């Protein structure tokens, strides 16, 4: 991944993270604000319910007391026979705006019932068993009605006429009509759960039966268990609602119903969805803009870096004269100037090094030439001096000395010629003729060629040829020479015998040739200079053998390396390009 790409990604991630953070904060703040508003709305509705409940209770109490104080009821209380008053309650209830009305005799027997006229004569024992009704106010009660039980807000008044007593009960059903009287803000609803055990539970809202009662059961269950108000969120997603449950207790504190004030979370969910979609759009836009800006910014930032990288690659490729333009005075400008200084320094140092190396090479060449030429020259000088001395002092032996002397001269001149020929060969190393070459075959031929010599030197030859080795592109003669030089080198390194291992290793893109000996080994310093022309660790030799090897390997676009441990041996490793 390029620096520019990385920088672009960092910018993009930063923009996305910033937009995400803002969206999260806005969403969270909105949710909190919404829930605060919802809580206020619910509390307001609960308070409205309480007010309405108390208002209706007061109205019922007033109406019932008014009925109890009426002449009609007094005459009923005084009557010896209640039968003629059987239909009384209906007209009284109607004229007093009450839905429920019963006139009950002192013994608890119903005289007249507006809500269930047929119940005359039936006993209302709960009335006669309690006293002080007038001060009790209105309360919730489960009322038996022809169409089933219902929750009602009722009040009771006692009428005493002489020694006779009569109860007046009146009230209103707490049902759909009551619920629809509550002013509902948008998105809110109020539901009534009536726990009327004999007829089963009923669930009502202002419009009738509740369609989705199941979602409220956990809240109802909790209120039934705890007998106190609770608030829960029910449902999921846009169908979720915040529900405040208010237990409705009767006269004996028995739970008769539960009022559920519910506020839909649809608005919040939709707002959150809107925020999310807006957030996503802003994020996408922000990311796009951020990418464009960061692309432009990174292009500006990385342009000098890229120029620096290109120049560095040129330097690495050998073009030490490469330089970068200095376009600013900031850190990048300083870096460019430093780079330019560095390359100019490198060029200067290379020139100095080349000169030094050139001088050293000439010195080494001169030393080697002097050394190599001095050895045959000394016998030549001695032979010529012997011949002159024999000519001057013993002419009779001159013929013999001359014969021997010329023989020696020719031999030494041959040596000189050989020396010069080798130097000439090195100088004239031809370009390789690259053809497919079977390296295993070259190894095999070399092993066969050196078999007697190795046996004489007590060296065990081990060849490990890779059977899957493919052909390589090489010059068979030059590679044979490389192999011969390395084998000769190994023989010289093992004067007291040892093991010579020649190994070929085939890989996908390259072929490796390893030649290992178990000789004295080399020091690291010797390893560093081993391929320097005319350098040798041996008492004889020109020091050109490994230099030639390196030259051939280099001409084959290969690489040679040496690893050695003193006392354990040396391994030459040549990596060649597969054909």
């Amino acid at each position, binding site marked *: 991944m390029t620096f520019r790409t990385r920088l672009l990604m960092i910018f993009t991630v930063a923009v996305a993270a910033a937009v995400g953070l803002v969206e999260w904060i806005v969403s969270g703040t909105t949710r909190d604000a919404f829930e605060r508003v919802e809580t206020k709305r619910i509390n307001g509705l609960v308070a409205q319910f309480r007010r309405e409940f108390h208002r209706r209770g007061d109205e019922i109490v007033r109406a019932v007391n008014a009925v109890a104080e009426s002449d009609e009821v007094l005459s009923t209380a005084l009557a010896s026979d209640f*039968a*003629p008053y*059987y*239909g009384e309650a209906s007209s009284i209830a109607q004229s007093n705006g009450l839905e429920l009305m019963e006139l009950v005799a002192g013994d608890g027997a119903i005289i007249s019932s507006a809500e*269930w*006229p*047929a*119940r*005359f*004569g*039936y006993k209302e024992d709960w009335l006669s068993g309690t006293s002080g009704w007038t001060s009790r106010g209105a309360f919730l009660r489960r009322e038996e009605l*022809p169409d089933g039980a219902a929750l009602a807000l009722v009040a009771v008044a006692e009428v005493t006429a002489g020694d006779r007593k009569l109860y007046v009960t009146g009230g209103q059903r707490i049902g759909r009509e009551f619920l629809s009287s509550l002013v509902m803000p948008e998105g809110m609803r109020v539901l009534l759960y009536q726990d009327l055990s004999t007829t089963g539970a009923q669930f009502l809202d202002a419009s009738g039966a509740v369609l989705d009662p199941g979602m409220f059961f956990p809240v109802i269950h909790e209120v039934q268990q705890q007998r106190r108000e609770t608030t829960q969120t029910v449902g999921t997603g846009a169908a979720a609602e915040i529900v405040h449950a208010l237990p409705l207790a009767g006269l004996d504190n028995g739970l008769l119903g539960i009022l559920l004030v519910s506020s839909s979370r649809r608005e919040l969910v939709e707002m959150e969805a809107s925020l999310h979609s807006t957030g996503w759009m802003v994020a996408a836009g922000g990311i796009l803009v951020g990418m464009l800006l960061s692309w432009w910014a990174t292009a500006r930032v990385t342009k000098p870096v890229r120029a620096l990288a290109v120049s560095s690659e040129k330097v690495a490729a050998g073009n030490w004269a490469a330089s970068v333009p200095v376009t600013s005075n900031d850190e990048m400008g300083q870096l460019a100037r430093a780079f330019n200084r560095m390359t100019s320094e490198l060029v200067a140092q290379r020139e100095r090094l080349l000169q030094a190396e050139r001088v050293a090479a000439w010195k080494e060449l001169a030393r080697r030439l002097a050394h190599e030429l001095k050895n045959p020259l000394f016998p030549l000088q001695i032979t010529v001096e012997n011949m002159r001395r024999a000519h001057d002092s013993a002419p009779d032996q001159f013929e013999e000395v001359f014969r021997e002397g010329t023989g020696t001269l020719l031999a030494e001149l041959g040596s000189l010629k050989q020396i010069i020929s080798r130097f000439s060969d090195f100088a004239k190393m031809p370009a390789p003729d690259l053809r497919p070459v079977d390296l295993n075959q070259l190894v095999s031929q070399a092993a066969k060629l050196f078999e007697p010599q190795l046996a004489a030197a007590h060296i065990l030859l081990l060849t490990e040829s890779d059977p899957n080795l493919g052909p390589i592109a090489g010059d068979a003669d030059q590679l044979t020479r490389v192999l011969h030089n390395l084998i000769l080198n190994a023989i010289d390194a093992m004067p007291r015998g040892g093991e010579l291992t020649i190994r070929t290793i085939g890989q996908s893109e390259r072929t490796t040739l390893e030649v290992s000996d178990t000789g004295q080994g080399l020091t690291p310093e010797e390893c560093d200079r081993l391929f320097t022309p005319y350098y040798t660790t041996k008492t004889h030799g020109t020091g050109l053998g490994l230099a030639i090897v390196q030259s051939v390997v280099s001409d084959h676009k290969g690489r040679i390396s040496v690893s050695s441990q003193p006392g354990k041996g040396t391994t030459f490793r040549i990596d060649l390009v597969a054909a």
Partner: protein
Amino acid sequence: MRHTWLHWLAFLSLIAACGSAATRPRYGGTLRVEIRESIETADPPQTGQGIADLASAFTITRWEGGRLAAYSANDDAPGGRPFLDSVEIQMARPFRDQSIDLEVGKADIIEIAPSEVRRIPAARKVWSTAPVRLLAVVFGPQITDNRLREALALSIDRAAIHNVILQRQGEITAALLPQWISGYAFLFPSATDLVRARTLTASLPVPLRTLSLSVEEITWRPVGDRIALNARDAGLAVNVSVRNPSADARLVEVRAISTEAWEALSGLASSLGLPQPPRAASAEGVYSGERMLLEGSRVIPLFHLPYVYEISPRVHGGPGITPLGAWRFENLWLEGIRP
């Protein structure tokens, strides 16, 4: 003995009527009668009591089935021309409207509900028949389980209904024939037995514990509701509706058409859809026949009730209704019309 006395009473009334008719002057005027019943036939009824009774002294002049009937005095009536010139009968008038019409002078004779009888001031003129109409529950053929019928019969608190809804009008009964005709109606037990009723209900499969009851006349809806309430105490669920032809049971009102026991029983059996009882001349025979009819509680007799009419003060010469409920308007005349 009682029957003999009633026959003599009717005979003497007829002689007296004939006697007076011979000297009956023409007073004129129209008697306006309102009734609850709606007779929706193409022609005026020729038999039965009520409108059909007018045919002897009046001639039909206008008939609108279920709404109006107009009669004019028949100059050739067997007992002589009636005092009145005509009689106009409005049918299907609710009790409440009848009362209002009487109050404002638009009606001269109206029917009143039993529950209203006790509210009528003592000064008002009221004609009442003997308890000739029977209020009873009749089960349809689909109710085959005798236990259900018996449980309902035993659960009904007749006394409460009689005291309160009927305002003690008429008689509680468990017999088809009223006591004043048969003399043995008291032998049929009418007391409530909730324990027995609950036992019978408990022996019924749950699906059979539900019953629909049709009230054929809206006036008796409170009675039907009370029956349902009583039935609930016995463990039965009774759903009350008005004029429901597919109901399991019906609360009906039928009328005794004769003072003679067997004839009355036979008429009631016909009206209730029961088989005819074997003809019997003796009280024992009639009793045996009635027992047979009531066996199995196919019919639950509840009350014998009279017809009660409230009469305008301007109507004189009555009573114009016989104990059996027959109309005898030929002797009536209207105040202010008489010269």
